[in-house]
């Protein structure tokens, strides 16, 4: 099969020179194409593989991933979710006979609350709610932020002005205030309504970041070349520009999930997020904040869980950020 791009005088077969960075370098005219490879250069990595290798060298991120996976697995399998049953015998609404003051025992490892409910089941239920909301909010805000940012960055002109002023609108109102009002509106819509509402207000940071990336990417040669050939705008954005910005987007999405955990628990603490009878970690803390001196287990467990979840996601985001950074030349930790 002849290669029409091959400009070598005798039309030799095109042989890519393998390099460690995985970039195909065209042989070109008169280049010496060797069929033997230098030691260590026989493997070339794609961008995804490179990122994965760098990520797994970040010890804190790996540890956090394991920790987070553990928490998620325990939270969702212990008391079950939806129609699926769990392995933890007790439920989170039933009241059990109180053992003493409700302090932790083998029977109830996290203790019992004031009316005898099993606190482990309650906390696991709250963790489930918080994790579902956080991931949902992260995804929704990433999608909205990416779309708005890439449209604004690519089209420039009045579209950019309008979209950026809209972003400024959402930035000027303090996030907690806006989220509180929306949370109150969505209070009767259940957990998915709350997720939607929170996702609608947390996209602004990502939009600005993506706009910056797209602004610089659209001047690159491959985009100019694609436009010169006549590629449609949608295809340029989705197939050329965004895959190059994917590092920033993934890192921001992860950090958005961490921020969403804290936002949702803060809202539930203030009373504008998840409302009773459903439970959330923030709600548990707000209910038992005065019990801190007399029944500390009611207060420590939800708070520690929020801290560990947010910390793990933040470390994973940091590991991803280091992994995607092409200028990283020294392994971290």
């Amino acid at each position, binding site marked *: 099969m002849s290669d029409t791009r091959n400009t070598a005088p005798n039309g030799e077969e095109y042989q890519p020179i393998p390099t460690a960075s995985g970039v195909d370098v065209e042989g070109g005219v008169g280049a010496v194409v060797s069929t033997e490879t230098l030691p260590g250069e026989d493997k070339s990595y794609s961008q995804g593989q490179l990122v994965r290798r760098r990520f797994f060298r970040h010890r804190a991120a790996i540890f956090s991933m394991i920790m987070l996976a553990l928490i998620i697995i325990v939270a969702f399998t212990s008391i079950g979710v939806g129609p699926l049953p769990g392995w933890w015998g007790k439920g989170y609404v039933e009241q059990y006979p109180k053992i003493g003051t409700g302090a932790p025992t083998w029977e109830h490892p996290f203790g019992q609350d004031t009316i005898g409910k099993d606190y482990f089941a309650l906390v696991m239920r709250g963790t489930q709610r918080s994790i579902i909301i956080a991931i949902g909010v992260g995804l929704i805000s990433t999608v909205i932020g990416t779309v708005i940012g890439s449209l604004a960055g690519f089209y420039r002109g009045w579209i950019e002005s309008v979209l950026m002023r809209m972003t400024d609108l959402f930035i*000027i109102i303090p996030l907690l205030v806006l989220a509180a*009002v929306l949370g109150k509106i969505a209070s009767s819509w259940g957990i998915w309504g709350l997720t939607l509402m929170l996702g609608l207000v947390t996209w602004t940071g990502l939009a600005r970041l993506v706009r910056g990336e797209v602004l610089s990417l659209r001047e690159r040669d491959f985009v100019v070349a694609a436009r010169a050939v006549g590629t449609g705008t949608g295809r340029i954005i989705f197939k050329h520009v965004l895959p190059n910005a994917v590092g920033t987007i993934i890192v921001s999405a992860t950090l958005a999930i961490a921020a969403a955990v804290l936002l949702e628990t803060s809202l539930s603490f203030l009373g504008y997020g998840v409302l009773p009878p459903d439970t959330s970690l923030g709600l548990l803390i707000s209910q038992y904040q005065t019990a801190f001196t007399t029944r500390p287990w009611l207060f420590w467990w939800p708070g520690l869980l929020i801290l560990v979840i947010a910390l793990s996601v933040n470390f994973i985001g940091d590991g991803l950020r280091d992994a995607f950074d092409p200028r990283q030349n020294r392994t971290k930790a």
Partner: protein
Amino acid sequence: MLKFILRRLGISALVLLAASALMYWLTVKSGDPLKDLRESNVQNREQLIQARIDHMGLDLPWYERYWDWLQGVGGCFTGNCDLGVTVNNQSVLALTEQAAGATLRLVTLATLLAIVVGIALGILTAIRQYSGFDYSVTFGAFLFFSLPVFWAAVILKEFAAIRYNDWIAVGEYAPTTILAVAAVAAFLAQFVLGGTRRRRLVTAAGTFVFIAVVMFVFNVTDWYRNPVFGPLMVLVVSAAAAVLVTALVTGFGNRRVLYGALTTAVVGLISYYAFGSILAEPTWFVLIGLFLLTLVVSGGIGAAWGGYARKQAMLVSVVTGIITSLVIVFDILVTNWAGFLQLKSRPISTIGASTPNFTGDFWETVLDLGAQLLLPTILLTLISVASYSRYTRSSMLEVLGQDYVRTARSKGLSERAVVTKHAFRNALIPITTIVAFDFAGLIGGAVITEQVFGWKGMGQLFRQGLDAVDPGPVMAFFLVTAVAAVVMNMLADIAYAYLDPRIRR
């Protein structure tokens, strides 16, 4: 430059208008303002419902209510603000004036502290990248970044406030506690300063001995309940600050700068005596006036001593002047502490922004406000410091990798000169935008902190308004915070233009 600012102001005003409309609409739609009346069983329920409908204009569509509110706000520009009335017929303006003071105090102090500490930590960790100090500060930053504010606030209330109040009644440390604290301080000192093993040992030993001796002396003289500082200590600390600032900014090569800074410290002490009677019972205006006088005088001293490095001498002198005034204020507060303890035996109350019916003089009131401010400020500062130090660190690392820094080093400049003269200012450029945006986040944190510490601030105003579906207080909260955010953005833009000369053209 002026056109730039005016254009930005114009766009900000339009965005503010749109944001206020959005906020008003959302608040009106967020619930049923008559809910509590509908659910009650009072005899004259119908009349109460009708009265509230008339009072709040509930039969009007939201845009008419919004237009009324906007006209009231427009009156602010001509001198008679009318922000409406709450459900209970209280003037929103009066409520806001009371509440805004507390919240703005908290947020500005937290921002200032966070900027100073965050940038310092960021630069220190960038210079000592990959050291143990760097890793632990980074871990600490992540920890405080992921900390739920409300949870930490309750913990802080218990351990910092209640335990401290219990302890101050006695005011003594057990000998084992003194040794433990000295050991921890010694470990931290050698950890931060680093160096060879011998140097670390010397640092640790010196710190241990110093802290242990000081704490033991404090114990014996009952310093925690009847502290003394004195003019000699003021002079010593100010002179030390002068030497430190000179060492950081210009180095000891230029003696004139050092003499200028030391002169500032001495003049500060002399003026402490000269203004002593005024400082015993001042007002806030007097204090601000004296502070501005300090800036001018120290700038003048620096200019007089300056020689060829006039601007640097002025900078060093002004910074030394600021530190000296802070040390003098500390001395005044220290002399008033014993009297304050008589009035308020449990200094850090966990409820409220100030003690009601407090009868102390000016400085004792300052101590009271300060004790109440301490814990919420610590919380908000810690969270902001986490993000500021991370951003400063990465920005500084990027600057230190630039070619012009390499050139400066190859020219033979000392590391200190490279960092303070070339790298520092360029590293600060991205931070200005971060600070401006973080301000809105700080307001949100203030809402939570006020809830936990029982402050009657803007956060409480907002929550009461939102719970009653009353747009008046909510919009007042929005006005204050949005205007503050716009002002911060403006300041950030001006700082940006000052720091980055490429923008000025």
